[in-house]
């Protein structure tokens, strides 16, 4: 390749590169630097403090609780939303009456803004007259304060996230299923393969690239979705629903502790990067493109 073509290629890449550097790479590096500095105050400029921000993170019980909550939240939302998405996609991929309507119904939660969704669910969970209470009351179950009880609050907000996400992931599975040649199904039928065998040996491997893509998104979302926490519980009761990003927001923009907030951001970024790398290098080997 000659120099002219090289220069041409770089020029073509420049606009995207400039935006990426300005809004992604530079902030990430700046955050890393800030995490080793103290929070600037009007009469106390920012100074290098080494690992002090990280030390206070280790001492911060709310950080650990938020991390624990977030891991449970991720462990529940990822398999549930991906599994549900796959089941729904298989279901609406077949020939059936009202297929279009069903697809739309499954996709609706994705279209609604999270803030609106959270406000609707707030009333689902309301004690005494909420939807859940009315259904439960019909079966004679006792009244329960879903969001106001430490033991059920996290599960309640997890359910909202699954409900919101499954429809979105379903669309990817549906698109992938539509791309699979019908001749495979016919060939399998001729060979006498059952539905389960066909799914396990043909569909699932062919869907692997989609699964990986969806998994990466699910993991990122598990650490990124906090809108409903802000609306429904504000991290309460007593930090039972505080997720990492919500805790980060509180430290950064309510407590104005920039240095510490930067340290939490670095941990969050590091965790996500590690998970993404594992997914790409380990799971990718199992996928057939």
């Amino acid at each position: 390749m000659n120099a002219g073509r090289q220069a041409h290629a770089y020029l073509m890449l420049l606009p995207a590169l400039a935006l990426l550097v300005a809004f992604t790479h530079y902030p990430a590096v700046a955050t890393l630097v800030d995490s080793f500095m103290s929070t600037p105050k009007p009469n106390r400029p920012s100074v290098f403090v080494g690992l002090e921000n990280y030390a206070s993170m280790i001492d911060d019980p709310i950080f650990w609780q938020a991390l624990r909550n977030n891991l449970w939240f991720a462990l529940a939302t990822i398999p549930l939303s991906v599994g549900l998405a796959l089941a729904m996609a298989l279901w609406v991929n077949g020939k059936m009456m009202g297929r279009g309507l069903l697809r739309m119904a499954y996709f609706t939660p994705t279209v609604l803004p999270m803030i609106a969704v959270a406000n609707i669910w707030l009333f689902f969970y309301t004690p005494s007259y909420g939807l859940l209470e009315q259904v439960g009351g019909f079966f004679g179950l006792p009244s329960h304060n879903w969001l106001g009880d430490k033991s059920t609050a996290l599960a309640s907000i997890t359910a909202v996230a699954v409900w919101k996400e499954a429809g979105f992931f379903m669309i990817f599975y549906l698109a992938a299923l539509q791309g699979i040649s019908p001749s495979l199904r016919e060939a399998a039928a001729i060979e006498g393969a059952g539905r389960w065998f066909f799914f396990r040996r043909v569909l699932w491997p062919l869907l692997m690239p989609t699964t990986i893509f969806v998994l990466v998104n699910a993991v990122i979302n598990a650490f990124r979705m906090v809108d409903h926490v802000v609306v429904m519980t504000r991290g309460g009761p007593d930090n039972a629903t505080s997720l990492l990003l919500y805790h980060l927001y509180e430290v950064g923009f309510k407590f104005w502790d920039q240095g510490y907030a930067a340290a939490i951001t670095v941990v969050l970024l590091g965790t996500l990067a590690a998970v993404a790398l594992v997914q790409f290098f380990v799971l990718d080997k199992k996928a057939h493109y």
Partner: protein
Amino acid sequence: MKFHIATIGAALAVTLVAQANAQVTEVPFYFPVAVGGPITKLIDQFATDFNKDNPTIKVAPIYAGSYQDTIVKALTAHKAGTPPVASVLLSTDTFTLIDEDAIVPIDTFVKSADDKAWLGGFYKAFLQNGQIGGKTWGVPFQRSTVVLYWNKEAFKEAGLDPSKAPQTWSEMTSMSQKLTKKDAAGKVTQYGVQIPSSGFPYWLFQGLTTENDVILANDAGNQTRFDDPKVIEALQYWVDLSKKHGVHPSGVVEWGTTPKDFMEKKVAMIWTTTGNLTNIRSNAKFDFGVAMLPQGKKRGSPTGGGNFFIFKKATPAQQEAAFKFAKWLTQPERAAQWGIETGYVAVSPAAWDTPALKKYASEYPPASVARDQLQYAVAELSTHDNQRVTKALNDGLQAALTGSKTPEAAMKDAQREAERLLRSYK
């Protein structure tokens, strides 16, 4: 036609010349919206009217979201070097704004006798939060207090006098016991009373502590008293309402759905802000009353809401213009109009003396309950590193209400955390 065109042309020319000659001072003004109603329209109207009266000033109101959104935007802009000239922010954020060196004291601009009379004209309870270190930092603007709403029909059904709200804590408990209804299966269908505890439980809790004759923090904002026996006693009363007496919903009660719970008759009495009056008045399908909070050792309620602040990094001309706007906004007639249309408590006795507000208060007496309660009101809890310290208290309150800690342990933990946070401000 020709004449018209000439006139318009001349008018245009005059305007252009006038604009070129007179220096127009721009005043970007951030404001939050925290209650229902046409707040944005009203603020825009105020700014337009003010600009018409003062051709050399151009106040540009900018809607900035919730209180939290607004302080995030204002402080971020301040740190980047270009803050708004003025903003309405929570009065409790005064310490934060001073610590960030973001605002100037209002006293800087109070020079004439007229200015002094104006600043002296506000209710003392509303000025308290803005007065720190002998200076006044914020002008009371959209302010509220906590009041008790009661369902008169439910009172009648329970055999209580529908015209009388509970006057004391013990009365509130005993009335609540009569008001709590259960179905055949023993499930509660209507609770007696409900005090919301999501988000900012400390604010409602401050009603209880004030009534129990204890103040949560000192004026310098560097010492809290969360573990005072009287504070623990107040929390015990709150916890007992549900744990011991079963007349209050258990766990953390959502602030946002509390008015709805009341309107759905799931609870006969609620504690909430005066700002919900218009909402409940237009949506409740039964007769209800508004009362001062019941007394423990005495009466009491915290004040709440937002003050008007002037930012330090603005030019002196802009600051003077903002001051003029603040003064204009809080003139009795305008404060009265603001109170009537929003449900906030008009900020000065003079505003309550205007014909408009007098008429409104006589036609609708509940509107004046908050004002009558002001004589017992105290400043809302506010300290250095305010949001962190109040979070320590909030976490403790929620831990006690959900039963994971005893009131005593919860308040001791909150106090220990507050001591740690405030160490560097002593």
